[in-house]
């Protein structure tokens, strides 16, 4: 099973890479058919990615959510899922062109991690693991899409009126609302992550909040997005300012995931 997962993982990387290139060509040559092919390729990559995760889970005999490799590949999966959901929900194909490089970077990061399957330490042997980490994957995926939307929002002004991109990118108000929807999804799931993590920590460590660096940075990320939401409803701070906060929020997400594990060891150090 793990060999199948390895093979599938490589195919998934290639599929995401090919989708990214197709999206770029779509923007360069301005042919809608290419975008449709890119979306189909991204969907195929996503389906194979799901199969790879299932194989990993079956091969390991547990949920594949416990180490850097597993979380990174799940993060890319979550980002792909949410971006596809937004592409279809809002008929916004160009989103794929901006999301695909981020997905490829994250799965590339996963490829650099050790794929060794290790047995779980007692603290991780809990049903809460599934709730806690899977909600984090959706949250991170949604924040990734919010980041991409914020970049598109910030670049929107540079797009020439009546140009190809202008016709394929929603207007600023719609972009702002779609970005808000993405942050809403992310913040809701991040709250689920923090609350389920607190309940689990209470059972495993005897303390639901220990100011561990991972906990603290999750809180910092939560606060940044809470500021984003408040800014959006303050007159004069919508749009550009909120978009900048969505970008800062995603920087916090990445720091919480990679930076904390690398620079700030704590009780989450196995993650």
């Amino acid at each position, binding site marked *: 099973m793990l060999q199948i997962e390895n093979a599938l993982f490589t195919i998934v990387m290639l599929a995401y890479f090919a989708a990214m290139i197709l999206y770029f060509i779509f923007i360069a040559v301005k042919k809608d058919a290419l975008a449709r092919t890119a979306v189909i390729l991204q969907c195929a990559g996503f389906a194979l990615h799901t199969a790879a995760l299932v194989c990993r889970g079956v091969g390991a005999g547990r949920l594949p959510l416990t180490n850097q490799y597993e979380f990174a590949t799940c993060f890319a999966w979550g980002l792909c899922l949410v971006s596809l959901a937004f592409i279809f929900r809002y008929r916004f194909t160009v989103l794929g062109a901006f999301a695909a490089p981020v997905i490829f970077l994250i799965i590339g990061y996963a490829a650099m991690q050790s794929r060794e399957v290790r047995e779980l330490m007692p603290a991780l042997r809990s049903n809460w693991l599934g709730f806690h980490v899977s909600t984090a994957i959706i949250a991170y995926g949604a924040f990734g899409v919010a980041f991409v939307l914020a970049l598109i929002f910030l670049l929107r002004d540079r797009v020439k009126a009546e140009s190809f991109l202008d016709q394929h990118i929603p*207007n600023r108000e719609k972009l702002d609302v779609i970005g808000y929807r993405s942050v*809403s999804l992310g913040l809701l799931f991040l709250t689920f992550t923090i609350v389920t993590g607190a309940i689990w920590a209470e059972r495993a460590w*005897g*303390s639901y909040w220990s100011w561990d660096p991972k906990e*603290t940075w999750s809180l910092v990320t939560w*606060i940044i997005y809470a*500021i984003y939401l408040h800014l959006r409803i303050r007159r004069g*701070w919508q*749009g550009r300012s909120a978009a900048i906060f969505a970008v800062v929020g995603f920087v916090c997400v990445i720091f919480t995931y990679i930076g904390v594990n690398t620079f700030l060891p704590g009780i989450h150090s196995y993650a």
Partner: protein
Amino acid sequence: MSAVRKIWKFISSMRFAIALLAVLAVVCSVGSLITQGQDYAWYAQRYPERTAALILALHLDDAFHSWWFILINAFLCLNLLLCNVLRLPRLIARTRAAADPRSALRTAGEVRVEGLPAPEEALRRLRMPKPARGTTEDGRAYLFAGKHRAGLWGAWVCHLGILMLIAGFSLGQMTRETYVVYGVPGQTRPIGDTGYLLAIDDFRVDLREDDTVEQYTAEITVYNPAAGADSALSAALSVNNPASLFGMKFYQNSTGWAATVSVSENGEPLQEEIVCAGEYLRVSDKPDLVIDFNAFYPDYVQSPGSRPATASGRLNNPAYLYSVYYQEQMIGMNVLMADEALTIDDYTVAFSAPQSYTLIQIKKDRFTSLALAGGLVTMLGLLLAFYIQPSAVWAVQSEDGLWTLHGSSRKGGALFRERVLRAAGVDPANHKSENEDMKDAPN
């Protein structure tokens, strides 16, 4: 406006809330970047002396319990409380108004489509509930349908949840009692000053084939000697499975190695005690002589020039690292194998019967439930705020018999307008709205 009112208004404002959140994000980041709970020497070793002094002066060594961190949180609570209290009457009025067609009819809504022959189909496409029918003050027929009023309460409920969470956490920090008891099976230890005793009945470390630990399980009995043995309660604890006894929560927290340390004097047994690694034994008839049990290696390996280590967790080649102190001066340190003994003048010291000890954490926190309930209420509030979007759609008949459809949604924005237009059979691309070209006001 008086200065007091100005301050009061500022404290309850969203601007203040945003500033507090920003400050909180910064101080939390700083608190996580600086290792907490160390002394001056520790910081001075890693930072320039001035920085180390500044860390201590600003309480950055214990940032999350410092007076300024508590003050920021107190202001945040005050801000949230005032926000919720001041908004409550408006929110009640808005909730009532959302169900009242007359309120909607007084406004134009966010989107308007004229000339519809039958608005019912548009309402159905928008999945609105069955509309109320009536006539306006000037005698025109209208239809009104509103839904998801609960969504108006999202932010309010979320703020309430955060208040509960902070209150539960703060009260828990102030009142909770924590104790640690460790020992090997057969030992009974007091639980701090609670009056209860904890007997360790059994402790198992389940290993997998590859020597990794699958689970730690302790079986304990807790009783109050004053209440008699009949009041004793027993439970099994393992990681992720704490037990609640006598209003206290017991956690299988950690483990380590213990050994029996035997001391004899001129060949006559003098003393025998179970000592955990990290503990020491004071020789009973020569208190100045102390045997410190530093570490235990169940499967001892040492190559020349390297530190002592263990090859596995199994008891294949037990070895004990000890140090000996006399009158608080270290006089020796070495590794002792299972079949070896240490001789100090007339005394012979031997280590034997290595076994795992369990470390049990005991906690009494009456406010944990409040904090966790706060977390759940916060989640509920966010769910209401983000996914229960209040909206109202109404249609008014003109003199020519055609209807004008109006729609209003608090959070739908451009997407809601598009939905209404599509439901009314209008292509959004051909419908110019006043809000479509959103411009940023200067910040």
